[in-house]
């Protein structure tokens, strides 16, 4: 199931982007730009790295992945469907009353493949750190991945967790920051003093690397170097573009909340090379 073939991963990411854009249009779900910026990160993880079994989603030794930027849920839901946790048709109920697909991930008890219900920012890394420490206590060798937004790094709890992880030399946790340079109302490096982001993680005792978050070679290489041999936790600062995949959405923060029209869905699919 797992592959390191970057052309396969790219094709998969394009397909996922098209589906996400279509779901946003059909269901009126916002945060499209935020979903599209982390599609390649999630694709690399779920199809290239994570040791998970869709037939046994709660297996004790599985790798854990938490989408801490929970507003990217629409992307995660499509990734989990494509990975085989549930059929794609289940997503036809997206946003329907009584269903499970909200604008943020539900709890693990309500949807297979989810490790934690997120949506309030700054929760995924502490939760993931607890899971990583549980692995140490239980003599398990699994890895924990937490995908954070750059805006999410405003939250103090992120840095509380960063300090504890380094102090405890928790090497089996990897943070991937979807650094799309925007948060809800403006440039993330202007609203709070975010820069230099990788340097900040290094200063907190983490092994930090920077990659092009849309380049599968770079993403996979960085992920392969984790866990770090000297006991440090790992932070991958992935430079991304908000709205990546549809030229008219890219780096335009209006797509934090805008919903694409049917025509814009067609235009996106043409650009992504996905059949209509």
């Amino acid at each position, binding site marked *: 199931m797992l592959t390191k073939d970057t052309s396969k991963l790219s094709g998969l990411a394009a397909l996922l982007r098209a589906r996400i854009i279509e779901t946003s249009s059909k269901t009126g779900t916002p945060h499209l730009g935020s979903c599209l910026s982390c599609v390649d990160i999630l694709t690399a993880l779920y199809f290239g790295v994570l040791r998970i079994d869709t037939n046994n989603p709660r297996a004790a030794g599985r790798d854990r992945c938490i989408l801490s930027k929970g507003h990217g849920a629409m992307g995660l839901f499509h990734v989990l469907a494509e990975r085989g946790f549930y059929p794609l048709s289940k997503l036809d109920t997206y946003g329907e009353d009584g269903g499970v697909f909200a604008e943020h991930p539900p709890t693990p008890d309500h949807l297979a493949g989810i490790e934690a219900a997120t949506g309030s920012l*700054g929760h995924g890394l502490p*939760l993931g*750190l*607890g899971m990583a420490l*549980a692995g140490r*206590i239980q003599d398990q060798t699994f890895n924990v991945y937490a995908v954070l937004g750059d805006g999410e790094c405003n939250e103090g*709890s992120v840095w509380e*967790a960063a*300090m504890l992880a380094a*102090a405890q030399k928790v090497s089996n946790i990897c943070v991937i920051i979807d650094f799309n340079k925007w948060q809800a109302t403006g440039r993330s490096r202007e609203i709070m003093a975010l820069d230099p982001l990788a340097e900040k993680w290094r200063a907190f005792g983490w092994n930090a690397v920077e990659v092009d978050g849309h380049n599968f070679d770079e993403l996979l290489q960085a992920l392969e170097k984790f866990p770090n041999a000297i006991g440090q936790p790992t932070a991958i600062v992935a430079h991304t573009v908000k709205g990546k995949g549809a030229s008219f959405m890219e780096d335009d923060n209006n797509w934090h909340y805008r919903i694409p029209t049917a025509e814009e869905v067609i235009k996106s699919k043409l650009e992504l090379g996905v059949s209509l």
Partner: protein
Amino acid sequence: MRNAFAEEMTRVAATDKRVVVLSGDIGNKLFDKLRVVDEKRFYNCGIAEANMMGVAAGMALSGLRPFVYTITPFTTTRCFEQIRVDVCYHHAPVVIVGTGSGLSYSELGPTHHSLEDMAILRTLPGMRVVAPCDASELRQVLHEVLKDDSPTYIRIGKKGEADIHSSLPELKLGKVLVVRPGTDVALLCAGNMMSETLMAAVILAKSGVSAEVVSFHTVKPLDVDYLHQASKRFNLLVTVEEHSRIGGFSSAVAEWRMVQPQSSNQLAFGTDDVFMHEVGSQAYARKKYGLTADNIAASTLRVLRAPS
């Protein structure tokens, strides 16, 4: 209670390999014996309670049974959102222990008082709220909480609380313990006000009033079976707690009374809706808020003897 907590946790951790203790940079040396049991199952998480609560939830979601320990305001109000989302929304079996509850740290000022903790935690779906009245109740509670996968908040004092129970009948969460049987009025106490409540019963006895004294060690779920039978036996239920009268134990009893076709009257003792701006010992603070045996007895007597 604090030392009993550390001592009993060491026993609990020795017998249950799922148990982990997380401390928010307090209890220097308190947990030394626990660390000997298993160094890997004790973490000083620093002065970072929001993260500590999330870490505990992550551990609980991985099959462990973490106990989070620090001074009450910092393990409740400080990180309420992490308790709500990470612990309760996931129904993660985290045990939150607040030490120095109520006015135990009176001299430290309102930053260290906790008179709202039961009120806010009681609102969270699935959360159990437990306030043992002495060390022996606490010891049993620490074992009882592990028999169920619900999150739990345990509110404890600091040190030097009187032992109430000489021999303790089997404690079950959600089932009261009658400390002193009586026939005229019921004095219901949640937590560390038990000594004053018992003394109030002694004072009432001198006036010919037989008061039943009950330990409501579990504020949620409330023992409604006891309340049903008590409201048949008594015209007046008196609630006592070192906590605001808004939202805590007295409110829980009042909420229950509200939906009964008929029930007893209620007299509530708790703290007023103010912060304490002057310095004072716990005894001073209790007196200020009317949380003394004398005031409880006198006020109860006044109500019992008032023409209806």
